[in-house]
């Protein structure tokens, strides 16, 4: 089989491929999912005809749509194909969806992260659907010898009213697959009012496989002759391997080999997402997961302090920076002391409007509050793992990855292979939350397989996973407000930083709404590795900012929603400064919607309400949390969210993700924390790292979407950041005490008789 890329235009999504000898193209997916069930076989076509990289159509009219992006639970595997199906104009019930493998020649941006899947796919995927539809129309026009402009489509059928001819897509698919694709510039996309699939909830295409326990994750993968590998990494940040005693485990049952692997070749210029806590680890290879995990417990290894290391690291763009990993065994108590110094120490000025220093001098009173949050582990339910089969000069990797493109070159370099000989196939992920954007596990599995020249599945224990770093950074933010004698807000100052990065987004609200505004940032270096965690930076600063605004509103004697709306009105009508990166009207829109949906002004005895709003990932979210105190326990009664993310492609799935983000936020606000003692993470499994469970989940969550025709924006992350302050503000109403430190649990426990 030969793939022929017809270079018909500049967009790779329209590459049409055909067999050298004819129109038919078999699935190029290496792992196209499970075998069809007997019921499915009845509707399975005898032949598939590829229309473009995303779409193939069977002779019987069945349609297969390829989801290009990795699936980690945000449901892109359903919602992205919905974009294709809408413009292709097919009946959703005749659609099969398959996961595409990593195939950069065919697909742009196979990346799940940054809440950008739907936003980036919105035009390209609809265009791919529309051009495929045009190809089918052109094929029918050629077959019937009528003008293409006279042919209409509906739900998988082509019709020429003039002659009364009507056929299903399947009947012209073989011809359509051989035609040159039309220029996408000439193909018209549907008006939003004509949408039949977009905006109508579709069930998760993998729902049945999930509820019946079918293999879908890399963890479930197995091939003939496959070996199993466990890893042992140093016990602390700042330590490395000194030596290990292979003989201590090789006599155990089922153990084949023990060796160390180095993830990077000397002098390799790392990619920005090549974050790796331990660049050298020990691998134990054997016949079963249990046997290698048992050996791991008894392996004798010695560790030593790692010296400072320096290496080159690329970024998103062409720039290369020098990265320094300091030596030393760090402690959370020391981290807290160093961060507290910045309450008085100056940071780097990121934005300044007006004369904040002057206004603070004139102030009648100044309110100053400092908020902190700890490191967080991502803890996706599927522990880190990967399958690799490296033989000779070829490598096949099957694993969980949010962004295979970022690890592709690294794997090839570490293996000493050409990039085109390293094939990465995309497994469904058991969660990601940012953690699987860092794919050192793929390199690790590949190096283990290369060493043993056999297929291998490498599995981290939960303890390995939780102590391997790439955490959400720890942060601190100090907010100051200057008020005059009439409680007018004269100036606002925020200074925020973290280890090792600052959470500040200096041009976001309330910048633009306050005449005298100062934002400063700072950071403290560390050898504790960090990475993107659901709404990076925002997941902390939103909580600090929105808690402070709540307290400020109270000091000024204003309703917290009204106060925010006043600020937004100012930003809308007479914005302060430049580069404000939010639209005040849309921001106000979600506050108004949540005020209505939560019956904000209605008070119910025993119900305590807190509000919060935030803009990130191009979307606007406001949330109200209502809690009660029962048996000295806070109970989350209701959560109301109002969201403006433009057009909602798959509403029920979108609500599901929003509900999940709210639960995630409540859990992390109450309990989430990773700490360190002499470089050792203090928690390594769910017995000590507390996760939110059924009992602590809200009794009810309502997610409301603003109805508009704006192009879709982010959704996976934006509902997460506002939760922290909405919860903190409602807890204040219930207990009379403001919470400044995350997690909230220890302070709540200090309160008399409170049970958590």
């Amino acid at each position, binding site marked *: 089989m030969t793939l022929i890329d017809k270079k018909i235009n500049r967009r790779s999504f329209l590459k049409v491929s055909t067999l050298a000898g004819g129109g038919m193209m078999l699935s190029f997916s290496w792992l196209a999912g499970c075998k069809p069930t007997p019921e499915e076989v009845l509707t399975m076509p005898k032949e598939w005809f590829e229309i473009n990289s995303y779409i193939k159509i069977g002779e019987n009219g069945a349609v297969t749509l390829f989801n290009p992006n990795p699936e980690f639970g945000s449901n892109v595997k359903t919602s992205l194909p919905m974009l294709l199906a809408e413009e292709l104009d097919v009946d959703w019930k005749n659609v099969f969806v398959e996961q595409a493998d990593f195939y950069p020649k065919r697909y742009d941006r196979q990346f799940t992260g940054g809440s950008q899947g739907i936003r980036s796919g919105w035009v390209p995927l609809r265009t791919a659907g529309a051009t495929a539809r045009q190809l089918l129309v052109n094929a029918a026009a050629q077959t019937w010898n009528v003008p293409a402009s006279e042919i209409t489509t509906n739900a998988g059928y082509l019709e020429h009213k003039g002659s009364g001819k009507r056929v299903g897509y399947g009947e012209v698919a073989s011809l359509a697959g051989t035609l040159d694709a039309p220029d996408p510039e000439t193909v018209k996309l549907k008006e939003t009012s004509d949408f039949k699939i977009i905006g109508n909830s579709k069930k998760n295409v993998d729902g049945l496989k999930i509820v019946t326990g079918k293999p879908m994750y890399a963890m479930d993968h197995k091939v003939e002759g496959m070996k199993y590998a466990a890893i042992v990494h140093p016990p602390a940040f700042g330590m490395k391997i000194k030596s290990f005693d292979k003989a201590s485990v090789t006599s155990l049952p089922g153990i084949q080999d023990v060796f160390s692997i180095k993830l990077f070749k000397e002098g390799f210029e790392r990619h920005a997402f090549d974050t790796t806590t331990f660049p050298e680890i020990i691998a134990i290879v054997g016949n079963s997961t249990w046997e290698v995990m048992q050996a791991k417990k008894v392996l004798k290894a010695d560790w030593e302090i790692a010296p400072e290391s320096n290496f080159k690291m690329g970024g998103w763009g062409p720039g290369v920076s020098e990265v320094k990993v300091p030596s030393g065994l760090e402690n959370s108590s020391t981290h807290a002391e160093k961060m507290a110094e910045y309450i008085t120490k100056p940071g780097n000025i990121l934005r300044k409007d007006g004369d904040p220093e002057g206004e603070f001098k004139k102030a009648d009173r100044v309110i100053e509050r400092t908020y902190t949050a700890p490191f967080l582990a991502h803890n996706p*339910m599927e522990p880190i793992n990967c399958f690799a089969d490296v033989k000779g000069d070829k490598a096949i990797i099957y694993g969980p990855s949010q962004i295979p493109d970022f690890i592709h070159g690294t794997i090839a370099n570490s293996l000493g292979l050409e990039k085109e000989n390293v094939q990465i196939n995309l497994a469904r992920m058991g969660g990601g939350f940012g953690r699987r954007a860092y794919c050192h596990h793929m390199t690790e599995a590949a190096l283990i397989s290369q060493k043993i020249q056999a297929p291998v599945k490498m599995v981290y224990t939960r303890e390995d996973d939780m102590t391997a770093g790439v955490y959400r950074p720890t942060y601190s933010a100090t907010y100051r407000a200057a008020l005059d004698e009439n409680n007018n807000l004269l100036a606002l100052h925020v200074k925020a930083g973290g280890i090792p990065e600052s959470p500040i987004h200096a041009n976001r609200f309330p910048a633009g709404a306050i005449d005298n505004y100062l934002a400063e940032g700072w950071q403290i270096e560390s050898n504790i590795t960090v990475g993107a965690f659901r709404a990076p930076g925002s997941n902390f600063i939103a909580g600090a900012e929105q808690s402070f605004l709540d307290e400020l509103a109270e000091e000024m004697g204003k309703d917290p929603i009204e106060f925010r709306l006043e600020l937004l009105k100012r930003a809308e009508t007479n914005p302060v400064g430049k580069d404000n990166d939010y639209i005040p009207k849309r921001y106000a829109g979600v506050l108004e919607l949540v005020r209505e949906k939560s019956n904000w002004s209605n008070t119910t005895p025993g119900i305590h309400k807190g509000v919060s709003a935030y803009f990130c990932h191009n979307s606007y979210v406001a949330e109200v949390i209502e809690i009660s105190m029962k048996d000295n326990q806070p109970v989350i009664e209701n959560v109301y969210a109002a969201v403006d993310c433009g057009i909602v492609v798959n509403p029920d799935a979108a609500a599901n993700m929003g509900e999940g983000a709210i639960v995630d936020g409540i859990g992390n606000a109450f309990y989430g924390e990773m700490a360190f003692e002499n470089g050792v993470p203090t928690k390594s499994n*769910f017995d000590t790292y507390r996760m939110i469970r059924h009992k602590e*989940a809200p009794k009810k969550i309502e997610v409301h979407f603003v109805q508009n025709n704006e192009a879709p924006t982010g959704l996976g992350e934006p509902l997460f950041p506002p939760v922290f302050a909405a919860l903190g503000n409602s807890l204040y109403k219930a207990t009379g005490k403001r919470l400044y430190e995350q997690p909230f649990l220890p302070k709540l426990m200090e309160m008399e008789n409170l049970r958590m």
Partner: protein
Amino acid sequence: MAQYNLKINGATKQVDVDPSTPMLWVLRDHLDMVGTKFGCGISQCGACTIHLDGTAIRSCQLPVSAAENAEITTIEGISEKGDHPVQKAWLEHDVPQCGYCQAGQIMSAVALLKDNPTPSDADIDNAMNGNICRCGTYTRIKAAIKTASQSA
């Protein structure tokens, strides 16, 4: 190593493994039944939940040597076509996000409804509290259990 005859989903399976091997890994590595998931290895997350004589247990803590002579049911065995009322309710409420914990959640829910066909909210919370869902689908899980309860 020792031979064990196991009754799983109504069929007899034979394995030759170390007696300490947890049922989780017997199922996954030796019998290729991978619906039962590895999450924590210390019975704290519930991803590996199976039924032992009808009771929901964590298979990561059940050595194969203790499973002989018992009826074991896994996610693959609760229905032939994925049409157990709990599975149907899960689909109706479109519960899963990443999906990884859901087999364990379903196994806990099936065991709950067998013993208590009309559970209260508190009953559901108590029975399900050992199953973590990192994606936070708890409210949908509760709604699905109630739907299954009404349809059973």
